[in-house]
């Protein structure tokens, strides 16, 4: 299991290939990549704040839960912090399993929990100034299915 919280950019494809090469006997690899989306077309940048120390711990706990609940060969979580521009990759998760169902479910579980339980906060900077992204009720609701 690899958990990385970093300011530096990463390439999801490169990480995916490395992850896939490292797992034996896993027929199924699922990845999720989150990209900075600029719906208004006016966002200058996104700044991600996090809680050093707690972030790594929270992500590790979430990944541990996934490894307990599903039959996984491995899991990967990468999440950036600091300033990002639209189109940049914010984070990714990857899961590997013998069967696709486990890999898909575990990746969705990781995403749902990461969204609402890992201490990251997004701020958007645009022509009208700065604003903190509000949490969505949907995201909290998504936890109920697990």
């Amino acid at each position, binding site marked *: 299991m690899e958990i990385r919280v970093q300011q530096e950019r990463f390439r999801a494809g490169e990480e995916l290939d490395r992850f896939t090469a490292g797992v034996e006997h896993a027929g199924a690899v699922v990845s999720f990549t989150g990209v900075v989306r600029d719906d208004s077309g006016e966002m200058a940048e996104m700044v991600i704040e996090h809680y050093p120390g707690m972030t790594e711990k929270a992500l590790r706990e979430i990944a541990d839960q996934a490894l307990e609940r599903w039959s996984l060969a491995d899991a990967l979580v990468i999440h950036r912090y600091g300033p990002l521009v639209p189109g940049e990759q914010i984070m990714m998760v990857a899961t590997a399993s013998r069967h696709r169902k486990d890999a898909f479910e575990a990746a969705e579980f990781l*995403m749902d929990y990461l969204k609402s339980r*890992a201490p990251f906060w997004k701020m958007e900077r645009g022509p009208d100034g700065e604003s903190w992204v509000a949490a969505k009720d949907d995201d909290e609701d998504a936890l109920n299915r697990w």
Partner: protein
Amino acid sequence: MIDVLYFAWVRERIGVPRERLETEATTVAALVEELRAREERYEVAFSDLAALRVAVDQELTGFDASLEGAREVAFFPPMTGG
């Protein structure tokens, strides 16, 4: 003595990312009451507890959590990672 940390707009309203406080409070809720009584910026930051989350020693918890033996309390809005 306890370290109190603030993140995102809570940090902006309080004006500092962290501070070290002397407190008699034995629960998070009591600490919040102490802070609100102190200065307006705390009153503003803690005006709606439903909009806030709290972690004691880096574990998410509720406002009724005990502060016994706690070294670090953090206040922040609901998380928006991913």
